[in-house]
């Protein structure tokens, strides 16, 4: 089972320089936090979906739809009830609070989708290389990438441990809140210890492959700015300018 998000395809988005994609990612975050109203946020979401479609990365949405849907439902339900508004709709729900909830849902989901597109179209190694070119120290950039890479490993360990303990009859859902918490001890101890052993192995493997041996490291991958990067950055900057205009123009 592949736990990485990267989709190995050859699209215009995949070929963009990782720094360009990082800039677009940050731009989308800035645009998202500008607004509370659903209208502009919806426009942003559409732009992101088009961008993602160009990178043929939207199939990954299938893998996190439950997360997106959960966030949307939770956000709309809670903000509708708790946010304040003036035009009553139903019970404590007002037109304004509902709009706020919908806006918050699109905002968070949009940011997740933007991150998803980035990870679906950019190799971790490219991200590292991009960060290094942005003068982030190699060790720090690599540590960041290892963090991302460890996630699937830890999930894999956790799945095996859960299966092992379930086959001994462990039922996580039984008992009251305290008992449920205690049910997790047989999972947490082996997961923690295995992860610790894994990182120890990893440290040895990394060192034995010369990690950190030289200050100057070369790169097998090549990245660089091309015409497409300029075009993407201009389109991104223009969109952001429009969003800023909508937000701050009176």
């Amino acid at each position, binding site marked *: 089972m592949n736990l990485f998000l990267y989709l190995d395809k050859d699209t215009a988005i995949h070929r963009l320089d990782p720094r360009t994609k990082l800039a677009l990612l940050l731009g989308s975050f800035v645009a998202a936090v500008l607004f509370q109203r659903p209208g502009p946020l919806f426009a942003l979401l559409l732009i992101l979906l088009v961008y993602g479609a160009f990178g043929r990365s939207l199939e990954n949405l299938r893998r996190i739809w439950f997360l997106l849907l959960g966030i949307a439902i939770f956000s709309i339900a809670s903000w509708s009830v708790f946010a304040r508004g003036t035009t009553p709709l139903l019970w404590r729900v007002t037109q304004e609070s509902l709009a706020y909830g919908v806006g918050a849902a699109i905002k968070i989901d949009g940011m997740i989708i933007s991150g998803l597109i980035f990870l679906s179209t950019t190799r971790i190694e490219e991200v590292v290389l991009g960060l290094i070119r942005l003068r982030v120290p190699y060790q720090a950039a690599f540590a960041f990438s290892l963090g991302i890479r460890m996630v699937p490993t830890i999930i894999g360990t956790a799945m095996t441990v859960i299966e092992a303990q379930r086959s001994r*009859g462990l039922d996580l859902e039984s008992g009251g809140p305290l008992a449920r918490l205690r049910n997790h001890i047989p999972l947490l101890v082996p997961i923690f210890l295995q992860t610790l052993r894994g990182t120890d192995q990893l440290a*040895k493997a990394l060192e034995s492959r010369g990690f950190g041996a030289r200050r*100057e490291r*070369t790169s097998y991958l090549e990245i660089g700015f091309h015409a497409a990067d300029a075009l993407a950055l201009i389109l991104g900057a223009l969109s952001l300018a429009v969003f800023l205009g909508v937000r701050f123009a009176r």
Partner: protein
Amino acid sequence: MAVIRLDEVSFRYRGATESALSGITCHIGRGELVGLLGRSGSGRSTLASTLNGTIPHLVRGDLRGQVHIGGEDIRAMRPRDLADRVGFVFQDFEAQLFSTNVALEVAFGPENLGVPRGEISRRVDRYLRLVRLEGLRHKAPAGLSGGQKQRLALASVLALEPQVLVLDEPTSDLDPAGRQDLLTAIRHRRQESPITLVMIDPEIDELGWMDRLIVLDGGRVALDGTPAALWTATDALEGLGLRGFTLARLATALGVGGRWESADEAAAAIRAAGWHVREGAADGLHRAVAGHETGEILLEVEDLTHRYPDGTEALSGVALAIRRGEFVAILGQNGSGKTTLVKHLNGILRPTGGQIRLSGQSLRGQPPTRLSRLVGLVFQNPDHQIFAERIRDEVAFGPRLQGLAEGEIAQRVEEALDAVGLEGAGDLDPFLLTKGGRQRVAVASTLATKPEVIILDEPTTGLDPRELDGMMALIQRLNRAGHTIVIITHAMGVAAAYARRVVLMRNGRIVRDGTTREIFSDEAELRALGLTPPPAVQVANRLGIPALTPDELIASLVRTSQPPNLRASEPRS
């Protein structure tokens, strides 16, 4: 000149009371092929860890004496500084791969060393071709088979172009074909230019092609010689808790001199010495197991299909019936669906097609606990389940979850600990035990729930010969006491010596299901599935006897000229 020089090397892990290595002196020449043997705790891995400076730089402890690699003192060189001189391949092929595709994995080492891009590209091509992964360069390492992963690990180390290659049990988790392919890649690399090789392998039979074998015991060098010199040292090796060469044991028992490199040579020499198959021996062997498998069907799998959420079909149309009292081995290459199949047998996985019947009753719509009460599954790695601070609590975990009374639980724990040979150890911390000991705790934990069927996934991986014999004797005792046993194993010798029935799997299907004797005598079919019978069985097949162990083989032969050299041999059960 020696490329590796160890002089009076001792090492004690921090917090340990005893030294892992005590006064080891050994020099290894350029291009020498060295096999490193020893029981667990003998210091094999510790010694290997000094060869690239992992000890003392990454592992804390007290190092005495001198270790020089290519003239450099390892105290002054970290592993990363030695990376272009000493390549290290580990047993765990998952933990040493961290890139997103095959080519980048190989490039990682040279990149660290600042090798120019053109040269990196040349090395990537060259070493991927050497390990025959050139067609998979864009694939993610996670999607490769175990054997491919280990070959990728080898290529990514070779890309650093080291003079010394250290391999710490690189084939323990591989099926026979994966092991063969890895060794072939190493041989190809050697044909290009000399490279010094230090390889740890628990199986001496796999090390016959080395120049030199060093056997450690209690942190000291116990034996050091060529495979030819150790050919006759079976008794000494057994005294150190190891096994001698299987073919050498045959030669000694049959009173035939000379050293045999292959089963063909062995069979020819045995014939030439006047030995031939005793009349009726084959029939006797076949009869020995007949009449065993008459128990009623406990578990029945019908047209079982399992498709993972991402669409991969791990099992397709599997049909299998397990009878009470059987001892079944499931064999097949890494990724053939063995583990997925047994996870269905105890209810961890639900079939996506087909069904499972328990004593004739369909389990569709039944809670998974119905199966898990009847079928206990011991996972491959005990460290995926051990969590308690005392062995007693660990073993009591299952019975407690079944809601048994404390008195009953205590009694079951004692019984289970007795059965696995851990009597009186209930209050110890399971994490202080060796791998073999922790494996026993895992078996005891399953036993304490009193399942009728016990499934063990790779129960002998990482165990030394003595621990392996102990584990298999335990499983055989459980079988004799009435438990139905199913094991998954890559250790062909284990399957041949203990299982009465063998199920062969390939690509999620069962391709053959029969008695161990039938299946092991069809060597061509096994090889087509990437499996190789153990050496004694290979010799037996060449002599035309369905013997499964050296003892059976010896007992089946008679000498024409002189009375047969009969040895006391324990009959198979």
